[in-house]
């Protein structure tokens, strides 16, 4: 008996060991690769790569078969239109492709190429397809802001020898040089070419053609019969392709550029790798096809949950970008020429739709992001709780469970703002219901959570359970708001609930219906502190091709799913976002929404936050997160996070701790765990881990005003919230590839999380010669390049760059909501010249009043020569802020910490400890000038390697007012303190 019990376990042990070994050899060999297409399995990708190979072969004298018909060229109101003619071998009739080039006031240019026959619906669909005949032309309706089209009317036109030159842009510094034959466009700025479309002649618009009959025996197949152009089968699903082959492809070159960034989401480095040979090249192109990739692998160009087809090319002195505005399946090849000149050449291919490319000529990362944001929108100001800490798990299983977790956070004194409920809260996966046994009194639960100003986020997915007596599915069907299959019947597939239908959020009526479902009196059990998580919106369909919908499914307007797949998730998020904003939360009031999405496209930053999906509790996933989130910032969607702790599996205590220390720097900071994973709320690990995690979370909370200010900046001009080295130091060529450290907004805080097991020190790269100070002990780091920084488990690597001022709220509370009455601390980090500058944005954090001026926006300037710190109003219309300023009067600055005080002040007297010097504070309050004094605390530098610190104590300055702090007394003789206040 004893022996018998041993023998089976022995074999299991052996197998486990083997699996572990395999695991070790091929890290995370868990993704089901066979579920997802490679380029060669995707007909149009295969064709276009072959097309490129053919065109680029040394022996081929390839000439791109596209030519502008010069007689059709018209420039009107900032838009050039013309016809491009495509020569098809063996055919006399040329294919007509209407071209428009739209010049925007901010310098952005849009190049759109359509197909005349398709615009006229002059084609015959295969089968009895009900699909639309045009090429998809509605991506802009979702991706771009409503009033995006602000044209530059003053474009200068010149046509010489088959070369049309268009001069445009700010101060007419940009040129678009259009070559008539073979068609291509070079974009110049200041006389230098930065972007070239169809540089290598890889443009390929697959025109409509009837499917040629099968060739007779022994005869060659027609050249119009494209490989993989018709019915295509993958994983048992057949795509009927009613319009046959219709891909659009284009090559885009960045002459002189060695680095390209963007096109998230991929688990890869920030600087994109080459995909067609070269050192460390990927074999596959970067793929953009939103998909539920189960247990994804890191360091791969494989597609993930969301797509933003925006790419930035950067070199010393210049940043430019392109947006490939196409929502169909897309692949991007990257090639780098390193010989004489450094050039990056890219090749973009989408399965269907218009060829629609936006070109942005920078010239700086800042101007580039601004122009891109003016087009696709800026990050929306989130409600303030949304940037605090989120506690999630699949699943908190009952109200008691929620209560218990809530209580334990308080007991262990760890702040948190939001507790999340995954799918198990529902009654049998019916969204808009609560499990009647485990969540009997949801409204009570919401109220209990509200006591500490906390929130509850509920998951609501786009699949609606197909079951009797479920009003939501009944309405979905009776109102005809679901996605259809190729024959026009309501599509049925499988997801969490089993058999399901999908809401078609492209349909305006569906959005209206969706909005009605979230009203508090409709969605029983929810309250004003309930917010929503949209998962599985790629959409994930368990039994569909590549775990998503068949491409020949039909959406509103009879557009094929193929055309708009990558937009699908965003339209669903949009419906939820609108629904939350439309909720009457009492007395007709509305509030800001918070929606987390897994799938996204360009423009989703206007609607909420994203996270990087189902990662794993492994060190390499912790490592992968930072580059992924930096990439999100580049692509205009900075409100992003990765599951802290790793979704699948069980992190070691060290990994969990390091993940928290890293996660506090994610713009969206949420811990999450799979249902099979062990509980890992921060209080479970025990000390020292729990204490270290508590300290990390508290640091996030203390810095919330700085984060909120960074969000505000992103919402105004698209600057990433966490910024990679190249954005902050655009001329630091050594630092272009750095993607494991980041700057937090404009704070000058430079963070480099520890992401390796057993690692106790990191090398932090300084991108300039400015002085940097250790956040914790004010140790000085100086000189461009790598600096070693000791980081035992309880230390988070953070440096403060000289020249910045950032706000904090040091008082510890249970949630961010409970910090709202607390005073602020200003940290003034002096640079070599003794100067510093910084910002504070503040509003009520929940309403839309900020849009009407109810906010405080201050600039703080420390003038080293004058020895003053002053607060300046940056409000655009100060008058509109009057009421809010009044309400914000109790908000004070209690403490000012000046790091490196001796850079500006003669601190020798202070150092002797005898000085009775005080700071003189002058504030303008309601038109009256007040003056008082505050005492000082001074800590001399421990040694030459550390900075000295001067603290202005109990300052009582109002954040809403103009004020100046005078420190000129410090160096002089101590005066007798004044007594008037």
């Amino acid at each position: 008996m004893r022996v018998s019990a041993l023998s089976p376990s022995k074999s299991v042990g052996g197998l486990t060991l083997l699996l572990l070994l395999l695991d070790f050899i091929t890290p995370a060999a868990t993704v089901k690769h066979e579920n997802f297409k490679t380029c060669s399995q995707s007909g149009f990708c295969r064709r276009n790569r072959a097309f490129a190979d053919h065109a680029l072969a040394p022996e081929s004298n390839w000439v791109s078969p596209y030519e502008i018909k010069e007689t059709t060229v018209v420039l009107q109101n900032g838009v050039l239109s013309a016809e491009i003619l495509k020569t098809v071998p063996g055919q006399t009739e040329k294919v007509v492709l209407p071209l428009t080039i739209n010049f925007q006031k901010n310098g952005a240019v849009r190049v759109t190429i359509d197909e005349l026959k398709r615009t006229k619906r002059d084609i015959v669909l295969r089968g009895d397809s009900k699909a639309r005949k045009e090429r998809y032309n509605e991506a802009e309706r979702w991706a771009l802001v409503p009033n995006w089209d602000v044209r530059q009317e003053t474009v200068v036109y010149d046509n010489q020898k088959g070369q049309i030159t268009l001069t445009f842009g700010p101060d007419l510094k940009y040129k678009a040089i259009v070559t008539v034959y073979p068609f291509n466009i070079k974009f110049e700025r200041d006389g230098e070419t930065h972007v070239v479309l169809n540089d290598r002649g890889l443009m390929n618009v697959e025109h409509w053609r009837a499917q040629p009959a099968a060739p007779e025996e022994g005869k060659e197949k027609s050249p119009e019969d494209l490989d993989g152009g018709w019915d295509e089968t993958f994983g048992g699903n057949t795509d009927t392709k009613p319009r046959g082959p219709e891909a659009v492809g284009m090559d885009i070159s960045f002459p002189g550029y060695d680095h390209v960034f963007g096109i998230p989401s991929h688990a890869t480095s920030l600087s994109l790798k080459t995909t067609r040979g070269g050192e460390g090249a990927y074999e596959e192109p970067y793929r953009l096809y939103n998909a539920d990739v189960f247990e994804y692998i890191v360091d791969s160009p494989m597609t993930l949950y969301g797509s933003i087809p925006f790419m930035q090319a950067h070199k010393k002195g210049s940043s430019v970008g392109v947006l490939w505005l196409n929502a169909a399946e897309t692949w991007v090849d990257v090639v780098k020429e390193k010989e004489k000149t450094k050039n990056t050449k890219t090749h973009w291919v989408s399965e269907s739709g218009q060829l629609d490319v936006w070109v942005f000529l920078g010239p700086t990362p800042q101007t580039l992001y601004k122009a891109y944001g003016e087009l696709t929108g800026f990050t929306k100001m989130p409600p303030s709780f949304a940037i605090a800490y989120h506690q999630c798990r699949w699943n908190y299983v009952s109200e008691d469970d929620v209560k218990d977790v809530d209580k334990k956070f308080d007991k262990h004194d760890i702040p948190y703002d939001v507790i999340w409920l995954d799918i198990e809260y529902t009654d049998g996966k019916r969204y808009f219901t609560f499990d009647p046994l485990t969540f009997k009194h949801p409204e009570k639960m919401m109220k209990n959570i509200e006591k500490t100003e906390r929130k509850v986020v509920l998951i609501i997915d786009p699949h609606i359970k197909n079951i009797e007596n479920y009003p939501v599915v009944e309405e979905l069907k009776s109102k005809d708001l679901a996605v259809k299959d190729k024959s026009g019947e309501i599509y049925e597939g499988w997801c969490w609930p089993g058999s399901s239908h999908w809401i078609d959020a492209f349909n305006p009526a569906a959005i209206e219906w969706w909005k009605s479902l979230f009203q508090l009196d409709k969605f029983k059990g929810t309250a004003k502190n309930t917010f929503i998580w949209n998962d599985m919106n790629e959409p994930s369909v368990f039994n569909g091709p590549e775990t998503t919908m068949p491409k020949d499914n039909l959406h509103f307007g009879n557009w094929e799913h193929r055309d708009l797949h990558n937009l699908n998730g965003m339209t669903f998020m949009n419906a939820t976002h609108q629904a939350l904003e439309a909720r009457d939360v009492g007395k007709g009031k509305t509030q800001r929404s918070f929606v987390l999405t897994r799938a996204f496209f360009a423009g989703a930053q206007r609607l909420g936050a994203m996270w990087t999906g189902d990662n794993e509790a492994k060190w390499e996933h912790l490592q992968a997160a930072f580059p992924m989130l930096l990439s999100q910032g580049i692509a205009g969607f900075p409100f992003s996070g990765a599951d802290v702790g790793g979704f699948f599996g069980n992190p070691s205590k060290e990994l969990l701790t390091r993940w928290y220390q890293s996660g506090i720097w994610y713009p969206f900071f949420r811990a999450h765990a799979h249902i099979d994973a062990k509980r890992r709320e921060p209080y479970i690990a025990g000390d020292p881990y729990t204490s270290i995690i508590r300290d990390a979370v508290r640091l996030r909370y203390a810095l919330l005003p700085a984060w909120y200010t960074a969000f505000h900046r992103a919402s105004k001009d698209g600057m990433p919230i966490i910024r990679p080295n190249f954005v902050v130091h655009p001329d630091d060529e050594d630092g272009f590839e750095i993607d494991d450290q980041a700057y937090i907004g404009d704070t000058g805080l430079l963070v480099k999380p520890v992401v390796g097991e057993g690692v106790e020190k990191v090398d932090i790269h300084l991108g300039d010669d400015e002085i940097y100070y250790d956040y914790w002990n004010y140790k000085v780091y100086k000189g461009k390049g790598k600096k070693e920084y000791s980081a035992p488990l309880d230390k988070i690597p953070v440096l403060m760059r000289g020249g910045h001022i950032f706000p904090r709220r040091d008082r510890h509370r249970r949630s961010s909501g409970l910090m709202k009455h607390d005073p602020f601390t200003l940290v003034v980090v002096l640079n070599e010249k003794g100067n510093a500058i910084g910002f504070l944005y503040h509003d009520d954090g929940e309403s839309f009043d900020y849009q009407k001026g109810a906010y405080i926006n201050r600039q703080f300037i420390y003038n080293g020569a004058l020895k003053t710190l002053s607060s300046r109003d940056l409000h655009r219309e100060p008058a509109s802020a009057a009421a809010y300023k009044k309400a914000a009067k109790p908000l004070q600055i209690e403490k000012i910490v000046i790091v490196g005080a001796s850079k500006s002040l003669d601190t020798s007297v202070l150092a002797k400890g005898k000085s009775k010097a005080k700071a003189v504070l002058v504030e303008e309050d309601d038109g009256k000038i007040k003056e008082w004094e505050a005492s000082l605390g001074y800590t001399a530098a421990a040694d030459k390697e550390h900075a000295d610190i001067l603290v202005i104590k109990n300052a009582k300055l109002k954040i809403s007012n103009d004020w100046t702090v005078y420190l000129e007394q410090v160096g002089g003789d101590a005066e007798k303190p004044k007594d008037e206040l």
Partner: protein
Amino acid sequence: MRSILLLYLPLALVEASQKPIGDAWALPRGLNPALSDKYRPSSSQTFSCLTQPHIELPISLLNNDFCDCPDGSDEPGTSACSHIKPSVNPLPGFYCPNKGHVPAYIPFSRINDGKCDYETCCDGSDEWMGVGGVQCPDRCQEIGREAKRAALEKKRLYETGIKSYKQLVEKAALLKKETEDKIVAVSGEIKRYEGLVSEKKAALKKAEDEEKLRVATAGNTGDEGKSRHQKLLDFTKEKISDHQEKLLKLFDETQRLRDELEKTEKILKTFKEEYNPNFNDEGVKRAVKSWEDYLAAKDSTADLSGDFLSEVTGLMYDPLHWEEYEPEQDDGLAQDVYTIEAFLPPFLRSWVHEQLSTLRTSLVEYGLLAARKPKSGSTSTTVPPHIQKLTDDLSTTESTLSSKQSELTNLQSDLTKDYGTNSVFRALKDVCTEAASGEYTYSFCHLGRATQKNRDGGSTHLGEWTGFERRVDDEIEQEVTVIKYERGARCWNGPERSAYVYLRCSAEETVLSVAETEKCVYKYVATSPAVCGEIALEGEEGVVMGEAVRQVN
């Protein structure tokens, strides 16, 4: 400075009742009066940070809502030092006097955050600043009254619980005594039966020897040219080789089935490893679950051990060395046939015994072996009645002895088993308690098993009783006795289930709550008088006092 004093003047008035009589100085807000001396201003109107007395600060900085002391001790009454770690700050929190109830400390992070924390601070003193317009009127009267009522009720329950506990202990002692008495009685019986067995063995031996002698004297008739013994030997050889052959076949068949099973299990194993749990296919999930259940059940069933199999293989191939068994006398062989078992390892004995019994039966059927003893010289195969009687008698006595012995073993192990302090759980053996929670009903039986029952009557085994341990019940923040149930049914995609029953003292056996704290780990909170003894040790007053102390801490 003066203005600050002025600002604090009204507060001083409010707290006038707390200040020591005849002392002009008022107790600082949020300070435990026991610490008041530490803050008494010096003649130069200063005070010192508690853990860094060299830092002397003007008294105006005490509770001025700005954190001056590195240890945070200058702000007992505000949240200004809430960022100072508890390990650094010598003050445990803001002291709520809670007049009419029990004084308590509340963390500094909850002072003036705009929320009344009546759970700790029933007097509302934590929100003295009224930030955001919050008002927290003193509710200590009602809360104190309610708390007293609850404490009394608790005390009453404890008292009843302690009574029940005492009864349980008595009952347990009685049961234990019974067991001990039984052990004495059974031991005596065993001695007696051992005597009887040896007496009977001797009597049988004597009778047999006499009988042998009688037969031998009668002479061996011998027949058909081959001795009867030789015939028996030949037959036995033939039969054994036949058995070996069949055993071989059976073994091969078993092996084949085992291989098939292994193959099938491998398929299922791969299936389980490779299926996508994200694809929530109910069918697949069910299949995986059944597979898990099958595996769990399989673990607990006996399997043929490797040693056993090699023994059997030995039996199949190792030919007996018959020459060793060539007897001088017939009885020898027969004897050996019977006693061969004796040479086998104990775990094989019963199996071989069975095989041999079959052989013996067939031998008897073929008339080649007597039921117990070959009887020569006569055609009759019956044992002489007197020997038969003696044999039967002996075997009855032996079996009685063995049952007495196992009874003793059971009784002795019961006596050494851990039944908790004072063996109190002995009195609760097999008492079961259950409660509904969510879609299930959960039950546990003392010293038995814990079970999760479905609405539809199905049930899942959560574990067998494995003992007790002490753990902290974090709801009441006390170390309590926990009953462990382990090695339950294996979970889908998870470990074997286990349940831990956290016991609190009360008069009744009840289940208060059940939660799955980890995947497949269940936490029961239950009450039982069996743990009232732990409280009783502290003294009955200690119960209420303990509560109060906890609230302060």
